[in-house]
């Protein structure tokens, strides 16, 4: 019997902007239920890699596979429907919408009401919206956002915006959650809260692929890949990569 394919796999990914090669033969595997980190100094190609996984960029070479099926040619929406959901380095909440509405948008792909149905306010459309609201309220409770439901998301501080973005990504029960620099703009306390959230979501069975330059946040990961000038120079447990000579040279210059 052959082993199950990894939940998410990057195979031989390469990308360049003009003559600048930003990714070279990058291969990363994220097992189902795993929590894998990608770390690297600024400009190492982490965000490009993430944009390729989430579909915002098409790679020059290589493949992206979700549960063994190639998704390299899929759009962002198709990947999202397949269960691949990401967050952004600068949290992209829907600023003029309330926290509740933000969470309700997170359920877009699991609802079906079309434009005409919504216009006439059919019974099905109303029932679906009510169910969507109820689920959003439950999700808000789970993430400790119940007191902020009616607050426009644009008025929230950075830490809470990050939680709203995380809750919005999780409400649709994704197969893989991609977190892009989730600790950026947060203070040490907020980072600790975030670390606990990520660990808890992963314990609940969610597969997480995390990009960060923050070594402290990486302690939450099972496996860490280190990207340096577009190449994976080390992979393994955090202790293992911290002890790697090339990583020490890349990070500390020693």
């Amino acid at each position, binding site marked *: 019997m052959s082993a199950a394919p990894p939940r998410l796999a990057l195979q031989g990914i390469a990308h360049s902007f003009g003559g600048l090669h930003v990714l070279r033969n990058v291969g990363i595997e994220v097992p189902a239920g795993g929590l894998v980190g990608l770390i690297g100094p600024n400009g190492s190609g982490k965000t490009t890699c993430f944009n390729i996984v*989430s579909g*915002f960029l098409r790679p020059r070479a290589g493949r992206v596979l979700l549960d063994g099926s190639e998704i390299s040619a899929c759009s*962002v*929406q198709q990947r*999202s*429907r397949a269960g691949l*959901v*990401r967050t*952004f380095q600068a949290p*992209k*909440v*829907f*600023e*003029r*919408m309330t926290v509740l*509405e*933000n969470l*309700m*948008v*997170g359920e*877009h*792909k699991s*609802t079906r*009401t*079309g*434009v005409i*149905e*919504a*216009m*006439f*306010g059919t019974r099905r*459309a109303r029932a*679906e*919206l009510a169910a*969507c609201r109820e689920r959003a309220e439950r999700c808000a409770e789970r993430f400790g956002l119940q007191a902020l439901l009616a607050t426009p998301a644009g008025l929230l501080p950075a830490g809470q915006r990050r939680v709203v*973005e995380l809750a*919005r*990504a999780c409400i*649709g029960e994704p197969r893989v959650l991609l977190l892009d620099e989730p600790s950026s703009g947060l203070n040490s306390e907020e980072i600790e809260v975030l670390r606990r959230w990520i660990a808890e979501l992963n314990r609940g069975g969610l597969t997480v692929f995390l990009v960060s330059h923050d070594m402290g946040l990486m302690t939450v990961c099972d496996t860490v890949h280190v990207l340096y000038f577009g190449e994976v120079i080390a992979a393994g447990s955090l202790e293992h990569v911290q002890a790697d000579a090339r990583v020490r040279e890349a990070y500390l210059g020693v």
Partner: protein
Amino acid sequence: MPPLHRSFGLVAMLVLLALWALLPLALPRHFLDMTNFAAILGVGGLGVALLLGQCGIVNIGQAAFYGCGAYASAYCTTTLGWPAAAGIGLGALISAVLAAAIGYPILRLGGFFLALATLAVGSIAGVLFFEWDWLTGGTLGIGGIPKLSLLGWSLNTPERYHYFVWVVLALALWLAHNLVNGRPGLAMRAMRDAAPAAEVMAIDMHRLKTAMFVICAVLGSLAGSLFAHYVSFVSVQSFTVERSMLFLLVPVIAGAHSVGGVVLGALFVALVPEWLSALGDFHQVVFGLVLVLVVTLFPAGLMGLAGGLLERVGRGRSTR
């Protein structure tokens, strides 16, 4: 919604309903003409408001679809002898198909480029209305368009049309309200606020924008048909870029995010220039100044101003 807003809204609604019912008894005909025109402007402006307020799309080409509706109604009823409903339906159908065909490619653009593309659509339509005089009558226009009638009741006076056209606007507002507060409305606002995040939430933005452009066009066409049957005469002068600007002013003045505000915006755009016309040649200049003042002082529009005042009253009460 806070209780104060709710009770104020209910009282305001009842007062407005009473005013609407009594208006034809109290006002002279030429004033009713203007309020009827405001309702027509409201129907067309509602489409532009949905695009601007919910999707962040500036449409400066609504006169194209307004013209389609007006000419479809005029041609079908005068030349072909069809019933009015058929002309209205055909105008809406043509506008929907055109909007889908034009919108699909141009809605890949964004910001100023998209606004310019819609302006081009309006301008091209204006030229075609002028050149295709076999269909539109050119500058001579098409006259003798029959008045609408409802269950044998001819809407041949401003008073009768008042009761009809405002109900049509109210229905359009109700549909728009449902749309904005439903699943597509959430998706539209998400798209407007943070497009990449909306994409990650699996919102098909291009399809949604195209659907909204089609709805906007159908509303523009309906407004054109209502106009044609009201004045019984249409000519190219009514479908210029200037008319597109009037449609755009409706949400800009009212506050683009408010569906109900369309009524306020349409009344402003229809009535204020008329009142200012007493100033003679300068009235256009003064209207321009008034517009600049409104958009500068109240960036959230007249509805934003009203909302702010209500909030202040509410805060005053709660601190007492």
